[in-house]
């Protein structure tokens, strides 16, 4: 077993625990590299077909390449796709900085999906190495009734015995990729030959390292046109992955504020 096998085995274990213990459950598909890897892992865990819906929180502001990718691979991967529109920007707290306010539409969209479909848990593709705040997460992370995250009151989690039973009203986020790094993700994409939105690959000297919506995501300077070149680039860089995400940097704590409000 090499290290990618070990990462895969652990994620498959987590996905099977979630499916066994929590019903109904859904998987959040941002169309980005991490959630595509997660769907791939789910297909491995459940031997070909993901037995729960993939949810795309649609703000209407994805790049055209991302929508094309969604349309193609929701069919190709035989996904049970839920792609409802997020509530409009007017519904979001106007006190937030502009990009954070835009990103917060997803939090409302998330709440809407939970209310409408009754999901008790959602599987998301966050990783500990992405952002300092995410380093504190549990694999099975309980949220309050209002979807808020209180990192001080997290339950103990050890020996792969996840907290799967919660009092009524608790909502759970499941994180099967928590232990992966950005380089791990790309090495796995390379090994498994997993299709990706083409915006990740350099064109005219630029590529997206982290993919969000039009207007709040900036590309990086890059000449990496293949997975191998992307891996080489990442191994050399000391820039943070989410540097291109505007809302993380508007104020010192804006990402943290988004998180406590229920943002991924």
């Amino acid at each position, binding site marked *: 077993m090499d290290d990618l096998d070990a990462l895969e085995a652990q994620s498959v274990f987590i996905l099977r625990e979630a499916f*066994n213990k929590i019903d109904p459950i859904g998987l959040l598909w941002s169309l980005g590299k991490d959630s595509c890897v997660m769907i791939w892992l789910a297909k491995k865990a459940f031997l070909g077909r993901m037995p729960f819906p993939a949810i795309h929180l649609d703000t209407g502001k994805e790049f055209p390449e991302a929508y094309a990718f969604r349309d193609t691979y929701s069919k190709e991967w035989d996904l049970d796709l839920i792609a409802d529109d997020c509530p409009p920007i007017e519904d979001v707290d106007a006190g937030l900085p502009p990009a954070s306010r835009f990103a917060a539409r997803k939090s409302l969209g998330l709440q809407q999906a939970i209310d409408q479909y009754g999901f008790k848990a959602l599987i998301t593709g966050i990783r500990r190495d992405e952002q300092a705040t995410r380093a504190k997460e549990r694999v099975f992370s309980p949220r309050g009734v209002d979807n808020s995250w209180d990192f*001080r009151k997290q339950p103990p989690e050890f020996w792969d*015995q996840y907290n799967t*039973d919660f009092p009524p009203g608790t909502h759970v986020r499941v994180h099967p990729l928590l232990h992966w790094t950005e380089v791990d993700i790309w090495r796995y994409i390379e090994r498994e030959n997993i299709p990706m939105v083409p915006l990740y690959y350099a064109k005219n000297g630029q590529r997206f390292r982290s993919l969000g919506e039009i207007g709040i995501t900036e590309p990086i300077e890059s000449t990496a046109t293949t997975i191998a070149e992307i891996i080489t680039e990442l191994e050399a860089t000391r820039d943070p992955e989410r540097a291109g995400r505007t809302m993380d940097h508007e104020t010192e704590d804006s990402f943290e504020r988004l998180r406590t409000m229920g943002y991924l």
Partner: protein
Amino acid sequence: MNANNIARERAFPIVIVGHIDHGKSTLIGRMLHDTNSLPTGKVEELQSSCERRGAPFEWSFVLDALQLERDQAITVDSTQIWFHTENRRYVIIDAPGHREFLRNMVTGAASADAGVIVIDAKQGVSEQTRRHAYLLHLIGVPQVVVAINKMDLVDYSEDRFKTVEGEMQTYLEEIGLTAQAMIPVIAMHGDNLATRSEHMSWYVGPTVSDALDTFPRATAPVERPFRLPVQDVYRQDGRRLIVGRVESGQLQIGSEVSVWPTRRSAKVVSIERWASPGTETVIRAGQSVALTLDDELFIERGHILTLPTAGPRSSNALSVKLFWLSRDPLRQGEYLTLKLATAEYDVVIDSIDTVIDVEDLSRHRGHEVEQNGIAEITLRSRSDITYDLFHDIPTLGRAVLLDGYHVVGGCIIEGGGDIETASRNLTAVPQSVNAYEREAANGYPGAVLWMSGLSGAGKSTLAMALQRELFNRKINVYTLDGDNVRNGLNRDLGFSEEERDENIRRVAEVAKLFADYGTIVISAFIAPTNFVRAQAREIVGDQFHEVFVSADMSVCESRDVKGLYAKARRGEITDFTGISSPWEPPENPDLEVNTGELSLDDSLKKMIAYVEQSILKSAK
């Protein structure tokens, strides 16, 4: 090794522990900086943030990324962060030193392959240092280094270092941990972290990063006995896939496996995969797998697959060493849930045998275990627990304890044995009348006569005749059949394969309750597969008597009392047993009654003779 190769292997997980303010976070922050592992701009970002707040910059701020933590100046939760030496990549788990956050320290440390214990040279070994060292040992972190920090505050004194070193050495030896190295450091200035100190020439041992690089990686225990705890069972294309993660050992396709606790066995037919074409015919520790077997045994989550030759242990009581995380003290007689691999057991605290004082390692008897306390206790379960000793197979020899929704502790299994109780039928709330008393009062034991057979075989007719005969003899008897169950208890169920299985499972549970009450239960259901009948036998237990009402398909179809066969042949009924859904005749029934060959009267006589012989015998 160059940077590219380092990035392409899995990070080595280490945990940093120690008393609050002894300098754990400073050590990590400085280590990240000295090994060039920080993102561009991180230190500058924090320095400017400190300036705005009018506070001096500290290395620990690198980790204390959350605003609230900076304000309170303590590390609340465990944080993970990556760094690399010249030789390999590490993921550091910074565990909080504050006593209140021990649960987070355990959360962080449990996934580490090695630990660094940080001690303030001036303050020396504290109670919290000892507790952390003890817990590292208890949760199975096998290797440690000790960093004796803030050497500048004791004038780089070798004597002071030797004193603290000696004190820690003695403690670690007593609990059975060996430190790879004891290193004098000044975390704030980076002395002896990644670079050798210029102030302590008397020290000739390794730096912290050198010492870490010598730790061997934890490897999956492939050489130990095979253990596959069942996580789930999936149905796919009419097959049942047993899924789970191999915790230890290895297994070849075609091997025979034993299932615990049912102690049935079957052969492994195939390993199922998606998008992982491979010709590998062996599964090994660490892999998440899906298997098919050659026999439809009753298998469910919590069962364990092993090789027939090297099985696990099984008993209704365990001796464990426990760490207790709940605010409320643990007391004898409390009921908890034990989660061991994928199984869950209801357990009662039978006794608190020894409470261990981590300060001086003294052992004394106690009536309760306080929060963050460590003790040896005996747990008792209503059913047998399948397990291994922690020493033999760690993942099958440790368990988490829950009180309701909350994780309240963890334990490692050091021994086990059966505790004789007044009744093995002990339940979470013990019944005040047990099965033996009921049997003595009634003059016969409760029992379940489980009749199965094709539609039209005569199950209901025979069941009703038998019920009348036993009732006439003043025996408590009740018949469960499709009509009285499908219209009430199971009216939410349809006729798909899953729903039919669930129907039978519920019937078996109800039958067990009636039998526990002392009734003779007659059940009359098709129960078409070995799987559902095995499950029913499992649920009911010793009181289960399997009766096969056999009649050839042709006989049943010619009778066709309800006209169902005709409808099924015309396709008006789907999933009809024997025609459009499978029928597996019972292989080893306790009694077979062939209603195609015997008259109703003779069939009834045969059944009565069996009941007199096998159930009512104890009445004599």
